[in-house]
């Protein structure tokens, strides 16, 4: 076989593997949408909008709030111009070595949208399981500090730190640490794993809320026997959610036994 044909064949097989593993798109009307589609027409979810509400058929509004054409005036405050409620970000230093530009005010950007629902009430806090102890060290000198510290408490809510800048300067600082230098930190080479426009790692760096690219319904939720959750990994090339997860993690750093030390 000619190399070009081999490549095509490999490419086709890869596509086939991805296609078979990926879950439904959020907007898929034939299969039904994914779990982030809370519209009343989605046949795949238990918890969804009121079918008698016309707006309940829209699929974007559950995360992306539409503009109001008709704001109310505030009766106690008639002088204030009516405005929409904007979203801004604040920041503070995260990695404690001076000169490392990893500003950090968790959560910023798109991660706000995720965490505004994934609060342990409206949507699960996605616990990683049982309680672990101790802070996560970026290294001897460079551990994440401040309230955003990814410590045992943070792990209980089950999320990797988000909204921090991860660029060449930050990487360089991590690699120069005596402990972290052996943990293979790098900027993501897997093209599906993307930082945001401001070089920040966000929830969407590893998760694609619009379409699960990995195996659907993989992880059982211990308290709710029988229910499973989709991991929504951005990458599905390995054909199963565990390997997909590992690939996503490994594109930035090693998987360390007991990573939360």
């Amino acid at each position, binding site marked *: 076989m000619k190399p070009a044909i081999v490549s095509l064949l490999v490419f086709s097989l890869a596509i086939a593997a991805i296609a078979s593993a990926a879950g439904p798109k959020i907007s898929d009307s034939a299969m039904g949408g994914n779990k982030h589609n809370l519209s009343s027409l989605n046949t795949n979810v238990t918890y969804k909008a*009121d079918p008698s509400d016309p707006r309940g058929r829209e699929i974007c509004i559950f995360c992306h709030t539409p503009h*109001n054409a008709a704001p109310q005036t505030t009766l106690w405050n008639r002088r204030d111009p009516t405005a929409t409620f904007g*979203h801004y*970000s604040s920041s503070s230093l995260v990695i404690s070595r001076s000169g490392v530009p990893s500003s950090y005010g968790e959560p910023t950007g798109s991660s706000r949208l995720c965490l505004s629902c994934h609060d342990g*009430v409206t949507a699960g806090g996605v616990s990683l399981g049982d309680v672990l102890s101790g802070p996560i060290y970026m290294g001897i000198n460079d551990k994440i500090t401040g309230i955003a510290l990814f*410590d045992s408490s943070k792990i209980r809510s089950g999320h990797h730190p988000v909204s921090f800048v991860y660029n060449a300067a930050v990487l360089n600082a991590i690699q120069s640490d005596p402990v972290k230098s052996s943990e293979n930190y790098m900027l993501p080479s897997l093209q599906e794993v993307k930082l945001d426009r401001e070089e920040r790692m966000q929830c969407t760096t590893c998760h694609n809320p619009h379409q699960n690219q990995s195996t659907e319904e993989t992880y059982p939720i211990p308290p709710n026997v029988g229910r499973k959750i989709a991991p929504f990994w951005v990458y599905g090339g390995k054909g199963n959610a565990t390997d997909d997860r590992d690939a996503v993690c490994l594109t930035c750093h090693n998987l360390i036994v007991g990573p939360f030390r």
Partner: protein
Amino acid sequence: MRNRNFHLKALLVLSLLVVMSGCMTAQPVEWRDTRHNLAWPQPPDPARVVFLRELAHPQDIVPEKGKVGRFLDLLTGDQEAKVEFNSPYGVATDNGSVVYVADPSAGFVHRYDLANREVTYIVQAGDEVLGSPVGVAVDRNGNLYVSDSHRRKVYKFSRDGEYLQEIKAEKEFQRPAGIAINGNGEKFIVDVLAQKLYVFDNEDRFLRSFPNNLPGTELVSPSNVAVDRALKVYVTDTMGFMVRVFDYEGNPVGTIGEIGDAPGSFARPKGVAVDSDGHIYIVDANHDNFQVFDGEGNLLLFVGRNGARPGEFYLPSGIFIDSQDRIFVADTYNHRVQIFQYVKQGGNNETSNR
């Protein structure tokens, strides 16, 4: 790991109690932090809501600064051991000076006694370590009710933090969340995944599920609940983008708000509370504020914007209004509770110093 954590937590509680016990003669915490002078709306409109203070660290309350931290270091050898607010969700008081804050990611309930300057933590119910406490409420005898969204249980504690019993409905809770207690001592407890509430009497006996399922008024994603003096019930339907109002019997009597990003509308409505004049306060995590409505659903005022200064919010969650019209907001990703005062029109409820 669980055992290790269990012991650590048990140790924390005991130790902090020991630390605090020598501090009974301290002056009560002032409700109003006079360094800040913030009111809504701004002059010349008469102020209707004023900023009182924030609770952000045990050191704000405990007289000897740093003592809590040092004691924890000594115990755990971990300088990062956290007793600050991690992601506070539910907040309630005993209508006096004791503030309870449910902190799901920390996995415990913070208890701030502002009069006695004590900070303690409720970390377990009997032998069971709390998983993800999200809702808190206090009855007129000072008993504390805590809903735990991971353990799928609702626990009752005495005013001293002693575990008393589990509160059980006709079915097992699937994901209990907001709790409100009306003037009759009846508890209304949201079950998010059951898409309804359960009602318990003054003696914690299960009475009924709530509301009545009339077509077009089903709850999509209930999260928080409040009751008013007329026994009406206000349920935040977070993914329905509104607060649904019911009479005591569970019949729908109205709705407040709709989806949107403008004043009067919601993106992620969460905490709900009612003041002594029947105004309804609704927190929106996405809008980083709380909005105040009259009983007809008309918008009166909004308080807050995105940020970390006093009067600003970062993905706030729960709200509670006490009998003195003090407003407590769990400012989740600012890791604090902010306290405000509702000012009656023409009235004179100056903020008292307890």
